[in-house]
């Protein structure tokens, strides 16, 4: 399992690089946070667009310089004119490139959950107001999408597969929206934080064995099943009942055949327990995760017991999501706030992380896991 070094995840910022560089980067990020604060939706304008010659543009400028030398040395007016025309193109293309990004609207959708180190998928929607935005690219984590044209009235939906770090809440941070249209000499871009989140579950430990072997059965809460241990009651005889179960004493009293009912009291509720796992915190969480997935595949209800918290047994996708989220958040400093935020989001927007996953018919993670 590889944990990507993510520049924009605040939790990891301090572990990397030299101090001086960090200081500079922190200042830059702080400035950026003030300039373009996080929001679900961004409307691009001069406030949040940056523009600079691209590498090709710098080469082009150097090339114009070379042509200027030719013009000077050959005292050639036509080459002078060419040099100025090409410079003019560079100047004009700055305006065009800016115009091509300006007015674009970017909306972020919170992503689908993923296991640590795998890809969380975020949906980003580009829409145009009045002009066509040509050749727009989305980049993050050194990946760029193909150039897309965004036309007014037709949204462009891009999915961003973001490689996650360790368990917890994954915030892809700032993504880059850029264009070099029309000439590729100048790049206009913006770094926007679309305030997107995805829960990152611990990566399941496949060598953890089966949950039944390690988990205890509990008496509280039971299910009945026909058995032979304890007397339960009488019911009218049904042909086919074993003669051994006929209550002959009752028959003697009131001349009616009745069958004795016995049940076994079996507790089938599975508790995934912190203490049943072993190793470090993270190893235990990985094992619990594996068991939860196995349990969801089985026929029993299952619950979770962690030090200081408990999730009562149940079954189903929603339950699994919640359980895995508990695992993901376990003992994280900002867990409380994130969970609260998540619930708030869930109430407000049904498409946000937990809700979206819950509604989905095909679970994205099950495929990755199996």
């Amino acid at each position: 399992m590889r944990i990507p070094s993510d520049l924009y995840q605040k939790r990891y910022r301090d572990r990397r690089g030299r101090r001086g560089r960090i200081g500079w980067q922190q200042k830059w990020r702080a400035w950026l946070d003030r300039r373009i604060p996080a929001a679900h939706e961004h409307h691009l304008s001069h406030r949040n667009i940056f523009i600079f010659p691209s590498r090709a543009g710098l080469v082009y400028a150097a090339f114009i310089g070379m042509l200027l030398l030719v013009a000077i040395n050959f005292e050639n007016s036509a080459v002078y004119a060419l040099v100025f025309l090409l410079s003019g193109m560079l100047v004009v293309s700055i305006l065009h490139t800016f115009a091509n990004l300006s007015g674009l609207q970017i909306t972020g959708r919170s992503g689908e959950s993923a296991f640590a180190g795998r890809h969380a998928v975020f949906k980003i929607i580009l829409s145009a107001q009045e002009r066509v935005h040509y050749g727009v690219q989305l980049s993050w984590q050194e990946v760029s999408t193909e150039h897309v044209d965004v036309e007014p009235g037709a949204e462009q939906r891009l999915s961003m597969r973001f490689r996650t770090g360790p368990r917890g809440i994954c915030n892809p941070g700032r993504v880059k929206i850029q264009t070099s249209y029309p000439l590729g000499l100048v790049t206009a871009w913006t770094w926007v934080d679309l305030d997107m989140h995805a829960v990152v579950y611990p990566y399941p430990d496949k060598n953890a064995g089966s949950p039944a072997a390690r988990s205890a059965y509990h008496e509280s809460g039971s299910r009945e099943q026909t058995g032979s241990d304890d007397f339960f009651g009488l019911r009218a005889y049904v042909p086919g009942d074993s003669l051994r179960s006929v209550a002959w004493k009752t028959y003697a009293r009131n001349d009616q055949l009745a069958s004795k009912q016995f049940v076994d009291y079996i507790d089938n509720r599975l508790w995934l327990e912190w203490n049943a796992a072993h190793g470090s915190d993270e190893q235990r969480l990985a094992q619990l995760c594996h068991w939860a997935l196995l349990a969801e595949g089985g026929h029993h209800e299952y619950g979770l017991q962690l030090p200081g918290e408990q999730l009562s047994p149940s079954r189903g996708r929603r339950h699994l999501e919640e359980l895995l989220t508990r695992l993901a958040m376990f003992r994280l400093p900002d867990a409380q706030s994130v969970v609260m935020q998540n619930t708030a989001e869930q109430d407000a927007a049904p498409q946000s992380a937990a809700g979206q996953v819950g509604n989905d018919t095909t679970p994205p993670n099950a495929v990755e896991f199996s």
Partner: protein
Amino acid sequence: MSTASQIPRNSIIWLLLAQLVVILPHTGRMSWWMIAIWLLCALWRMAMFRGEASYPGRAVRGVLVMLGSIGVAVSFGSVGGLDFAVALLILAFSLKLIEVRTRRDMFLVFNLALFIVAASFLFSQSVFLALYQIGSIVLIFTAMVATQHALHNRAPLLSLRKSLRLVAQAVPVMLLFFLVFPRIPPIWSVPTSGGGAGTGMSDSIEPGDIAKLNQSSKLAFVVEFESTRPPSIEMYWRGITLEDFDGRKWSAADSAVSVGDRSRREELTEQIELYGVPLRYTLIVEPTKKNWLFALPVAQLQTDADRAGMKGIFYTADYNLRKRTPLSERSELKVESYLDYRADWTLSQQARKNNLRLPRRSNPRARSLAQQMYARTGSTEQFVLAMQRYFLEKDFFYTLEPPELGRHTVDEFVFDTRKGYCEHYANAFAFMLRAAGVPARVVVGYQGGEVNPHNNTLSVRQLDAHAWLEYWQAGEGWLRLDPTYTVAPERINFGLEGALARRPELGASRLSPLYLRNLAMIKSVRLRLDAINHSWQRWVVNFDASQQRRVFERLMGSADPWKLGLIVAGVLGAMLALLSFIILRPGAKDTRSPEHKLYRRFCRKMQKRLQLRRGKAETPLAFAARIAAQAPQCAEQADAITRQYMQIAYAGESGLKQFKRSVERFRPRRPAS
């Protein structure tokens, strides 16, 4: 390779087209096999495009590069020449075609293409090439725009439109920079452009040389007079005086140059007197690859500024202008000429000897004739008149196709053939003058020229090349004598072309281009093109530091750098503001729906025919109601159109075609009165 860096297909198509257009002007300088290499690469790329071929391997590319380089080195001999460099560029340009994989790679090809465009200007700067290359640049940028489009963009013309817009918007910036960018003198010396030896005068003539030169209608120089133009008979563009005669060939004496190597005419000789007001004009001289400059005698550069600017020009002892280095570029000179002058009224012993020297045993018959005539007349003046009379009476004939002459050219010409061209007459006259003891020399240059009525300039071409002579008379100095004028005055009065038109028997069937030049229609088109090309040369190609300064002075009174800087910054700022407004204006594109456009057309028709203008805030329904009130005769039709428009635009109904038809058919009738 991720898809994000793949090259869109449209871009490849545009690139191929741009390459073809960029290479085309260079084909004359390239070998056939280089074009074959480009074609091979282009076909290969097309095959890759269709998925029939893959990228060539490293080995194949290596071999192609090696063979190509060797080929260029062999074909273009000298390594380091301009031709060689351009050939290498084009080779790299062609081969790169089968190597580009990513969007980034494309930029190298674009830069190469632009460089090859620039290189073409080192060979020619004509207005036609410039226009052509604007087309090339549009194509190159079209390919560049196409590269930035989404991978599967299906609208190739979109890129062309964008490119045209970009170029059009960059032009004002270009003009401003062209005007104000300081022109710096060359930083290091560069190889001069190729293009072979120039045509033009040489410093020696034999009978037949000028006639050969006259076959060419190539431009020698253009003259712009500041005041009135002198008559054709005054326009002897003097270039070289030929003093040495070997019996057949007249050639320039070395002394004329070495003695008079001065940068100020006044230092040259005290024996010159100039009278009257000088004739001022500008010479725009073609790159002849020769040192001579041609001007009306006695000429000097107009101002000190020009004297400093036109470095390398000096005055010769025979009061001609000359350049130290051969003319490799078109250049411009401001000259003033004193047509009325007196020069060298006393002649040094050495000069006298030089101008009388004849080979001992050449042309005995002409020599004795001259001596007899001089003895009869007694004075130089009378002798010259007698000679002219002799040539008139003896039925000499002026022709472009004179018979070949043998050893004694003057004898054969004067006594036998009697058919000759200007150099024959000049040759004979100069010889006979010398034989009679009158110092004489042959002068070559141009006579007359063609006036272009479109811009009032005078174009002097190789076909105006002429030879005449000067003889020396005590107290008077050197005097011009043109025997051709005696024999064929129309040559001088109307120019060679005029003379041919008047006297077709001058017999120049070989000179058919001369005739072609004069067909009325062709001539008018040609003169117009010449006028355009001339303005281009004058205002664009020859735009240099001194012209820049003149423009500034005319535009704003002075070339004060502070003032200039402020004005330039102001203009640039205003230009950029305007450009920003045009480009960034929201909804700059015409996004109006077709029904809206059609409705506007209807409104225009109403306005044009019935002067009924729809108010700015008037709704279509209100307008229709007003039409019904003010022009009831077309109320019905207007109502139908309005209803159709409303239904399509607001109710989202179809029927655009029908709507279009009714708008097109709509003819607002005038009220019957």
